[in-house]
Structures are given as structure tokens and as C-alpha cells.
């Protein structure tokens, strides 16, 4: 007998050791998320995948699936919470979609569309963080970083530890492991997994922006709930 949990009343099978997110993904149930990627250790930082498990809020990406769980995912309340979280992510940085080369391939933008986010709601912070274009092939626009740590985890898997998150709360920021703190002095190379893992337009390959025409970009073709987790994680401009 396989074990099951219930997500919005639907019975979803799981095997021991799977998280709710993993069980849902395997069954084709979309739970909005940004910091989750199937190839990396769950982090539970963006809180977008918050679901109600037996009446309590939990991060679906970190919470283990257990027999008999009643999971609520697509409720008005959770949708509203997720929309507000997304709005907060937008106003904390400078997410100016009209000119951003990641537009159409950006998970943050796609999640915002999915959640029907129609405005920022909160006052803009007008973040002004330094742009690091020192590396010949990769650049970081820190204003677009949402601190999901996917690059940190990917770089760990690359065996390089190029990225880390430093500071707490509002002072949290992405740092680069190099004597100068600049990308050019780090061990990052164009072939690294960390280069293409960013779900927003913070880490980008240089010089290739806008090469994919409108209509052919990942989220032009499918809404984010129809794109596989692996595809989402690798979304970039080429």
C-alpha cells in the first residue's frame, strides 16, 4: 500500500523521505515557490510555498510528507499571503520588468503573474546596491537579488563556494568569496551551475540579453505552473 497525503482534497502518493513539495511536484501539483530547486538542499527561505498542514502554516519545500496529512495549497488566504510576499520581494529590490533582459524567463515575474499581482501595494524601497560587472562573462545586479540562496547552494555543488548571504534582516546581502569581493577575483567560471540558477535577473551571462525573441521565452509559452521544476531552475536568456 502506498502512502498518501491530501492536497486540496486530492490524494497524492509519496514515499518516505519526500517533502510535501517533492510529493506534489511528482504528482503534477504546483505549489508556488522561488527558493526551491529539486537538485539542491531545501532552504525554506522565500516562504512562497507556505501551505497549511493540518491547520498549521509550513514550508512545503522543507516539511516532510507524512501519512494522512491534510494539506491546503490553493486557498484564497494562502494566495493572498503569497501575493503579499511577492509584492514585498518586488519593492525591496529594483524589479523593473519592462527593460530587464530576464523578462519572460524570470520566475519572480512568472510567479507574480500566476498570483495575479497587479501592483506593488507597498512603498518602493528604491534599492541602490552596487552592480558587479567585473567578471568578463557574468555579472550581478544586486538590486534584483531576492536572497533565495540558489546560487549559494549551486556554487557549493560546483565545489567553489563563490557566493554567500551575509548580514541579517534588512541588511542581508549577497557576498562574493574573493579577496576584493568582486566577481572577477572569484573562482566563478562561465560553465558553473551557479551562473544559470538565479530565478530573477540578478546573476546574468553578459552580452546575450534579449536574444530570445518575445513569444519564445519560457513563460511566454507556458504559465509557471505548467513548467517543470528543473526547467524553471535553469531559466535564462539564451
Amino acid at each position: 500500500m502506498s502512502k498518501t497525503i491530501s492536497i486540496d482534497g486530492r490524494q497524492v502518493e509519496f514515499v518516505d523521505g519526500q517533502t510535501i513539495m517533492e510529493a506534489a511536484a511528482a504528482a503534477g501539483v504546483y505549489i508556488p515557490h522561488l527558493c526551491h530547486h529539486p537538485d539542491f538542499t531545501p532552504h525554506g527561505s522565500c516562504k512562497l510555498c507556505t501551505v497549511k498542514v493540518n491547520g498549521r502554516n509550513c514550508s512545503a519545500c522543507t516539511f516532510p510528507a507524512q501519512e494522512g496529512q491534510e494539506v491546503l495549497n490553493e486557498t484564497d488566504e494562502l494566495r493572498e499571503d503569497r501575493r503579499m510576499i511577492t509584492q514585498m520581494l518586488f519593492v525591496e529590490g529594483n524589479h523593473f520588468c519592462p527593460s530587464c533582459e530576464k523578462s519572460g524567463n524570470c520566475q519572480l515575474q512568472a510567479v507574480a503573474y500566476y498570483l495575479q499581482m497587479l501592483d506593488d501595494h507597498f512603498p518602493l524601497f528604491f534599492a541602490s546596491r552596487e552592480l558587479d560587472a567585473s567578471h568578463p562573462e557574468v555579472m550581478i545586479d544586486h538590486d534584483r537579488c531576492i536572497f533565495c540562496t540558489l546560487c549559494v547552494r549551486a556554487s557549493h555543488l560546483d565545489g567553489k563556494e563563490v557566493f554567500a548571504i551575509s548580514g541579517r534582516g534588512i541588511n542581508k546581502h549577497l557576498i562574493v568569496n574573493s579577496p576584493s569581493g568582486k566577481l572577477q577575483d572569484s573562482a566563478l567560471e562561465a560553465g558553473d551551475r551557479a551562473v544559470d540558477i538565479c530565478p530573477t535577473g540578478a546573476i546574468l551571462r553578459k552580452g546575450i540579453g534579449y536574444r530570445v525573441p518575445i513569444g519564445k521565452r519560457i513563460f511566454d509559452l507556458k504559465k509557471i505552473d505548467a513548467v517543470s521544476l528543473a526547467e524553471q531552475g535553469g531559466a535564462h536568456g539564451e
Partner: protein
Amino acid sequence: MICRLAKAERRIQSAKAATLAGIDSTNHSEITLMYEQLETAESSDNLRRVAVDPVTRVEGHGKVTLLLDADNHVRQARLHIVEFRGFERFIQGRPYWELPVLVQRLCGICPVSHHLAAAKAIDQLVGVDPENLPPAADKLRRLLHFGQVLQSHSLHFFNLASPDLLFGFDSDVAKRNIIGILQEYPDIGLQGVKMRKYGQEVIRMVSGKRIHGTCAIAGGMNKSLSREERDYLLEDIGQILKWAEQAVALIKKVHCSNLPYYDQFATIRSHYLGLVKSSGALELYHGGIRARDRQGGIILDHQDYCRYNEIIHEQVKSWTYMKFPYLLSLGSEQGWYRVGPLARVNICDRIDTPKAEAARQDFKAHGDEPMIHSTLATHWARLIEVLHCAESIQGLLHDPDVLSQDLLLQGEKRCEGIGVIEAPRGTLFHHYQIDENDIVTKANLIVSTTSNNQAMNESVRQVAATYLDGRELTEPLLNHLEVAIRAYDPCLSCATHALGKMPLQLELVDASGRVIDRLVRESDGMLQRSLADA
């Protein structure tokens, strides 16, 4: 009316006399600013201020101010641009490949012009000069640009200008708009809407969106046309071509039905500047700079636009956010010039599509001078360009290159790029410098409307002096000022670039609307408290 016309004609006669007396055809350094004295009144004491604010049926926000004395004589007339953008500053610090997408947000009417001018500039940054661009990319960009000029010109003529031209400058203000045109002349109004739509569809097929698409990238294009897209555009081009011919016939009829009036209204005798092909033919996408003086003599020809800094400089005046460009060789007093449809049709030797060329010859033949100076003839020239665009689009859609996938070239990186294009409203300059990390460090944009700044002001002053001077002002009379400005189809939001030099004015107004205090920061940073009208 007869008196006013007679007065206007006397002014024109006196201008011609001055021309004949003082200037021969080889001396293009002499150019008369007939109404320059109206730029700044000797003293604003006891003068009454009348403002047309905002100027309507133009792109962007501007106002005209008049200062009148007790007898309603015009002492000062100015076109002010009251909005401020700042693109040249805030694109600094961004990577160069963002430029075509970032700067096209300058405008919602002709974003394609900015997109392409920036793309031409960043082509150079990746080591690709215009002549080396893959033919497919070059032709797709041209197709995009023809679509853009077609839609922008159609929008201007049918939606913005035709109410004045078909109903009369002093017709009922309630009717003088596109709704009135659609009611009174439904065929013409609908043709305008559909011609604009067709141009927008060309843009959508090439760039993915009707407004603010992305297609031109450093060294080429990101897509070609599919066969379906090409065939879709071919379906209607025959009809568009017919309507374009009818539009040229219409404006010719309107212009010639009142020829002396149309030839003198807001007319100024200026130099003209624009790009031409190496053959001297009309060019909208890429060519050398040519300038002709008011008698048609060549001031400069086939100049490489990358040297624009040696050809054109800009002057800043304290009362407007828009700069005043001039030809360096002639100086700021004499070197101002006009750009746009009238300039292009005036400076070119021919147009290399047959119907537009026939229309050009017809147009040039209507005047008795080598150059057509009539400001209202700009509408005529504009529609000749619409015809040229329709013919060119038809030609390009039959060219197999627009289906080719050979779209991109990359060369050796450079740190400076300059892109110049003939936007609907005239010559548009984009100039960028980047650092070793691909980040923009410097940007200069000279936008088409800016080049017409002096000319628009001179036209406003001419109309003020000719039609308004000494009369009790009424809405129809004030509309004459707007008609003069509209002929240039200015895009005021694109054209405001006097960064860091903006005079600011703070007004305290009481409940009845009376200004009770005013604080002015001049362009030199000096603060003044004054109640005298400016």
C-alpha cells in the same frame, strides 16, 4: 481676414526683399531670424501673460507663453517644454546590451527609432559597423523602421493634424478633433486608424509587440519573419499603398486650395539637415549627413555621423528644458536648421520608390524656389514619406532575406558607439561610451524634436506677430499657434535633455487662482523671489 493676410504677405515680401538684397546663393551663412526680438521682451513690467498650456494634439507636454502690452501687441512668444526625462543620466551604470530596450521607453509613439538608434550604436560596441550587418538583419530593421514611420506619420496626420486642415484653424473647437473627423469624414478617419494599425502590425511581427518590443540586439536581430508573418503583412499592403496615394492627393488638394495662405503660414526660411543615401536619395535608416541652406546650396554632404560632434553643438537657454542645436560651422546664431519630413524631402536628390518620387517631384514643383520653406508643407512631405514607406514595405516583404536566419554578427569590442537614424520627426543621435566591464559611462542623445526647437519657436513668433498682434485673443487665434507647432509633429517628451540646468519655478496660488508668491531657481542656481510674470 483680408487685412491680416495682406499684412502677412507684406511680411513675406519684406523677407524676400531682405533675401534678395543681402544674400547670394553661395552665402549660406546668412539666415534671418525675423522674429527674434520676440524671444525675450525688454522688460516684463506691465505686460500681460497669456499661456496656451498644455499645447494639445502633440506628443508630450509643452506650453506657449505670450507677453502682451496694454494694446495687445505681442512682446514675447515662447514655446516651453515643461517636462523633464533624464534618460542620459540613469542609463549610466547599466550594461550596454540593455540600451535599445531601456531607451525606447523614452517614447510610446516612436520607440522603434530609439530602439534602432541605440542598436546601431551598440553594434559598434561589439565591433559591427552598419555596412557589415548581416543583410537579413539590416532589412528586418529597415522593415521595422518603415512600419514605424508609417504608423507615426499616419497617427500624426489623421489624428492630430487633420482636424485643423479639414475643418479650418478657427473652426468650432468642439469638433476640431479626431472624433469630429470620424463623424464628418468617416472614410478618411478610418483610413487613418487602419494605416496606423498596419504600421503597428509590421512592428509587432518584427519585434514581438506593437509598442516596446525587443528585436534589435548588438550585431543583428533576434528573429526573422516566419512565412506566416510575412504573408499576413502582404495581405493588406496593397490597400495601404492605395490609401497612402490618396492621402498624398488629399494633402495636395488641401494645400493648393489655399496656396498663398498655406505657403506663408508659420513659414520660416531655414537650413535643413538629414541623412541621405550615398546616391543622394532619401534615406531613413542609414546614410551620411547632408545639410542644405535655404537656397538649396550644400552646407555639408555625406558626412560620417560618427563625427556629429564636429558638426553639431547644442545651446542651452534658461527658459526651457529643450536645448537648441546648431551647425558648428555657422555658429549658434546662424546655424539652426530644421529636420523631419520637410527637411528630408528638401535635401534629398530623389526617392528611390517610383510613386513617392513622382509625388516628390510634384511637391517640389509647387514652389517657385529650390527649397520648400512652407511650414505647413511639412504635412505634405510627411505623407510623401508615408507613401515611400508603404512602397518600401511591399518591396521588403517580397525580399527572401527577411525570412533568413543569418541574423547575427560579432566582432571585436569597442568602447564607443554612435547610432544615427532618421526618426519620423527627424535626425536622431545616440552616442554611448562604455567601460572595460561593458557598463555605460556616458550617453548623449540629440532627439529629433530638439533640432526643430529654434524653428518651432520662430514659427510660433511668426504666427504671434502675424495673427495675434494687436488683437483681442480668442481660442481660434491661440489655436493658430498650436497649428504652427503641430506641423512639426514635435515629440516633447523625447526632447527634454538639459540635465542639471533646469530652471525651476514654485508658485503659491490662493483659492481664487491668483499667484501670490513665486520662487524661481534660474539655470545658474540663483534663487529669485518675484511676482512679475515670466
